[in-house]
């Protein structure tokens, strides 16, 4: 058992070493003057890199317009609630080169504003609305930023880790007492 664990740790260390090498897209962006932090390839072999919020629109445009990279489709926008802030994660792909790429943006929790990429890929329109609906990230410049899956008068952002779901009338009492619930929600607002 212990030897297995040791070998696992060694593997992880090796993976960490690999991560330091910048990938193809990271090198491309660096050539164009955009700095990025390479995060290596994930378990499914997709190159991942983190860039600063201000570089997002510029680098997306570069990746799309260049004939070598030709990132013409936005596959997915995932949002993530981490301790350091909210993340907006873009999974991109090219129909020509069949390559996938993932770009991560981290924004502070007290001011989660990310520039929109709707004008680059129109698929972003609904993805960003969903991300706003579920995680409360505000996409600056979005043409129609309103809730998409939840009702318009829904309170809170369900996929945040500190979200308290409303009392479930079907499955018995709420885990918190009424006063506890009020305290928690009040402290969240303030």
């Amino acid at each position: 058992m212990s030897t297995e664990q040791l070998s696992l740790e060694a593997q992880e260390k090796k993976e960490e070493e690999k991560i330091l090498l910048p990938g193809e897209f990271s090198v491309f962006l660096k050539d164009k003057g955009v700095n990025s932090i390479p995060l290596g390839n994930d378990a499914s072999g997709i190159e991942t890199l983190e860039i600063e919020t201000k570089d997002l629109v510029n680098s997306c445009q570069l990746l799309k317009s260049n004939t070598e990279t030709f990132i013409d489709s936005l596959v997915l926008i995932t949002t993530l609630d981490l301790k350091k802030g909210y993340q907006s994660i873009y999974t991109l792909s090219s129909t020509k080169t069949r390559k996938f790429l993932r770009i991560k943006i981290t924004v502070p929790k007290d001011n989660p504003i990310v520039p929109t990429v709707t004008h680059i890929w129109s698929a972003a329109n609904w993805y960003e609305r969903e991300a706003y609906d579920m995680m409360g990230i505000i996409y600056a410049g979005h043409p129609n930023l309103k809730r998409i899956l939840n009702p318009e008068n829904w309170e809170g952002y369900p996929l945040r880790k500190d979200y308290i779901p409303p009392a479930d009338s079907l499955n018995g009492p709420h885990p918190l007492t009424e006063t506890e619930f009020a305290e928690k929600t009040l402290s969240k607002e303030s």
Partner: protein
Amino acid sequence: MSIVRDTEQAEKGFKTDEMVINMGPQHPSTHGVLRLVLNLDGEIVRKCEPVIGYLHRGMEWLGQNRTYVQYQALVDRVDYLAGMSDSHAYIMAVEKIAGITVPLRAEYIRALCSELNRIISHLLWLGIFMLDLGAMFGFPFYTFRDRETILGFLEEVSGQRMMFNYIRIGGVFKDLPKGWTRKVKKWITTEFPKYVDEYESLATRNPIFLVRTQGVGYLSPELAIDRGVTGPSLRASGINIDLRKYKPYSVYDKLDFEVPVSTVSDTNARYKCRIQEMRESAKLITQIIDKLPGGDTEDLEKNKAQLTSGTNPVYKAEDLMTIAKGKNVPMGFKCGPGEAYTAVESPRGQLGVHLIADGTSVPYRIKWRSPSFNNVSVLPDLIKGHPVADVVAIFSSLDVILPDVDR
């Protein structure tokens, strides 16, 4: 105020007011509950705004509050017509992060069941599509008859008609029943092609059907890619992207099949692509059954020792298992830390799962990329300028399933 508006209109010439009509959410042809806010100029649709979320069940929230093993049973509900594809995408993501290699036989069984599932989904779509077009003579009865046969096959395998929960972490729930592959092969080679011919004889050259579908709902390839439209709807626009060939997963790189593509880009093309896809799936099923390592379960039991022993065995013993060795996962199965995006070609398009694991038994974040979500987002552009009667035809031709949109 009104005087100002009237004079403005008078300057531009005579203009009738647009009427705002609410279609749905409880509309029989919205395949679930979709609400469309239509701006009509007489019969012509000028603007359309889809309102979704009526079937939102919080699949992503549920995912990060359940263990990996508990969530297995839920994922079939994301797209209830293609439960196998849902499970396949999710399980592949978990296996990628956990580094599990699936036995060859299990991979073949997964592909086999997914293809049967594809036929089921397309058959349901075909029946409902014809009904939406106004074929009130009972077309769905023909397709549902054959759908029921395949549902019977899958029930024998998994114990469920629609929510299979058959594909599990590390392999499949259990081996195929004895004699099952022979039965399926016989039905799929002798009877199924005849049935597809029957549907085609009723629809493909029917003049009313052609008038309702040809030249209706043109989807340009540029718009399709920009909006992330996938599946037969994209391939009917002339773009040959099928994840089974484009980025092969499971055993699809070992199989020989064609991807139907059309460049006509209208409703009729989407219909033809799906019909052709059913035929290709039928061919794939026979092919998979022929190549299935160990063959039918009955034969496998007899020949297992022979196949795996000797100096040069045909298969390794691990290849013939249905679940990876030692991976019969307990409830507290832990995974990660890691991140993976895996996608499969579901009957509706690219169905992906973005899984972020933190090393505990509960996913940190699970995000679904459902094909219908993107496919329905293109609807306003397709129906602009068409009469109201075409709204249902075009919407139906995109094969959108609302639980898949809302998740």
